[in-house]
């Protein structure tokens, strides 16, 4: 009995390649080995099953393609009304109606004018680290992990995911300066004689002894300093002569994007009315409902927390927290405001919870998550 011959013929039959003679031969072989019949039947059933298509994901992919066609000069209009929302203007307006920008009320418009004057000098360079052989200590946390360290002066520093903290060798001799890219929570040992300074690419924070959080990721739109206890002074790199003093439970937000935009405008033409977005604002810290912990420093307690934040901002936090990449396939969700707090949840549980309150869909393929 030639088993292999059966499979050759069966494959040909299923693929529509078998001739009439071969079909007869197959029938004959199966008569000779009836025990093979049930499995042949099951394989045939499996062959005919095709995966059902996820219509929503297909539609999202189509929209991405249609807007790409438009970009390349081949706009395509189908008759269906939903496709008129190529750039989602309709849905956008619905969303903004549903989710008003609550926080505008809190925002203090500070010093925008002063800063825009100085903008022509906008430095983007990092603080020059003396090329002279000053040995540096560097602590790096990869995405997906957090850590806590103690500096030589006894100050505690919690480092959030995707963060780099550097300090010079002379830190031990009382030069309390660190360089931060990413997010860190500081509990600084008080020493009025030796102020503690944190340098970021867009602001410096100077303290005597206190607890506060600095969030300065290069990829984020804002750089933020949040004060829990004590007092800190913040100096923006664009206007270092001005000192911003924070009180406990306040945070200073520097809008890096507005800076970049204004610089662009300043190069070309006088500032227009469009430019009124606040560059710097001081706000109250955010507390989630019925929570004692402020959102800003909750990560030090291993809680990923956000309150009324735009989905793309939340996505950046989740990317660092879970070490993944999140892509939007439906612009509608980029206008969505989210609140949430995750402690022990894994990525799938967190996505499911957010999905439950909003209705987006997602797909995980490897380290990439598609939101649609």
């Amino acid at each position: 009995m030639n088993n292999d011959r059966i499979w050759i013929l069966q494959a040909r039959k299923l693929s529509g390649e078998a001739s009439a003679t071969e079909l007869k031969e197959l029938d004959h072989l199966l008569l000779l080995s009836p025990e093979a019949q049930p499995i042949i039947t099951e394989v045939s059933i499996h062959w005919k099953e095709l995966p059902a298509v996820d219509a929503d994901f297909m539609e999202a992919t189509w929209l991405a393609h249609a807007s790409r066609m438009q970009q390349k000069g081949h706009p395509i209009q189908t008759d269906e009304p939903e496709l008129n929302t190529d750039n989602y203007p309709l849905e956008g307006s619905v969303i903004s109606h549903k989710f008003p920008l609550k926080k505008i009320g809190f925002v203090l418009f500070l010093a925008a004018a002063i800063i825009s004057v100085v903008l022509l000098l906008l430095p983007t360079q990092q603080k020059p680290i003396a090329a002279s052989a000053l040995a540096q200590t560097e602590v790096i946390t990869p995405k997906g992990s957090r850590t806590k360290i103690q500096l030589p002066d006894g100050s505690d520093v919690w480092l959030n995911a995707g963060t780099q903290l550097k300090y010079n060798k002379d830190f031990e001799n009382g030069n309390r300066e660190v360089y931060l890219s990413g997010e860190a929570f500081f509990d600084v040992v008080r020493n009025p004689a030796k102020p503690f300074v944190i340098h970021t690419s867009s602001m410096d924070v100077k303290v005597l002894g206190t607890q506060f959080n600095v969030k300065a990721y290069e990829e984020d739109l804002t750089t933020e300093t949040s004060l829990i206890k004590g007092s800190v002074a913040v100096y923006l790199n664009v206007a270092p002569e001005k000192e911003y003093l924070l009180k406990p439970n306040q945070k200073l937000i520097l809008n890096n994007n507005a800076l970049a935009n204004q610089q662009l405008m300043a190069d070309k033409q006088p500032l227009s009315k469009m430019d009124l977005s606040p560059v710097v604002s001081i706000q109250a810290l955010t507390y989630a409902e019925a929570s004692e912990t402020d959102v800003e420093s909750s990560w030090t307690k291993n809680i990923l927390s956000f309150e009324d934040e735009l989905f793309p901002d939340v996505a950046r936090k989740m990317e660092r927290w879970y070490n993944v990449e999140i892509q939007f396939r439906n612009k509608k969700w980029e206008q969505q405001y989210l609140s949430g707090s995750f402690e022990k949840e894994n990525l799938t549980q967190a996505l499911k919870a957010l999905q439950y309150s909003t209705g987006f869909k997602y797909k995980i393929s490897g380290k990439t998550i598609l939101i649609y």
Partner: protein
Amino acid sequence: MNANSAQHTEGSIAELQYQIAMYEDASAYKSLFFILFPSLQNFAFSIVKSRVLAEEIASDLMLEVWERRKKLMQIEHLKLYLLVSAKNAAVHQLKQENKQARFSIEDLQVEFVSEYSNPDQTAELHELENSIAAAVKALPPSCQLIYKLAKEERLRYKEIAQLLDLSVKTIDNQLAIALKKIATAIQSGRSEKNIR
């Protein structure tokens, strides 16, 4: 969906092709996109192994279909034509990334569960389907791809051979091997159940 609907697809591709070529029918183009895009992207992915690049390749090809819609009727077997184009674009992409790279049939990465398949359905695959999926995954990449092209894309042996630069004889053998492995998986799955 069953074999009949897949055969319909062949016919409906030609039908849509005609609508697009003659009437610049955008809705027909969208339907065509729904039928072809996942196939093109999945196939390109098996070569470039990047979702983003594969999507770009598939999107470019579909764009070309619209751009050249007036001459669309000149293409006899559109699906195969586009799959061959997808392969060429993907191999070109590989060469650009690494000038020495040569496309090898053994260097494929085939995804059993397509991004476009319904997650609700795939999440609830029962045991039997899981063991079939595992059996397919255990096949050598080229064998997996041949199986997928025959089963899901309904391509003929000659067409698969042309697409992958293999002989028809190889397709014949590989497909028989794939079926036999799947049969073994089904049988062992069933005997496990009997033991319980």
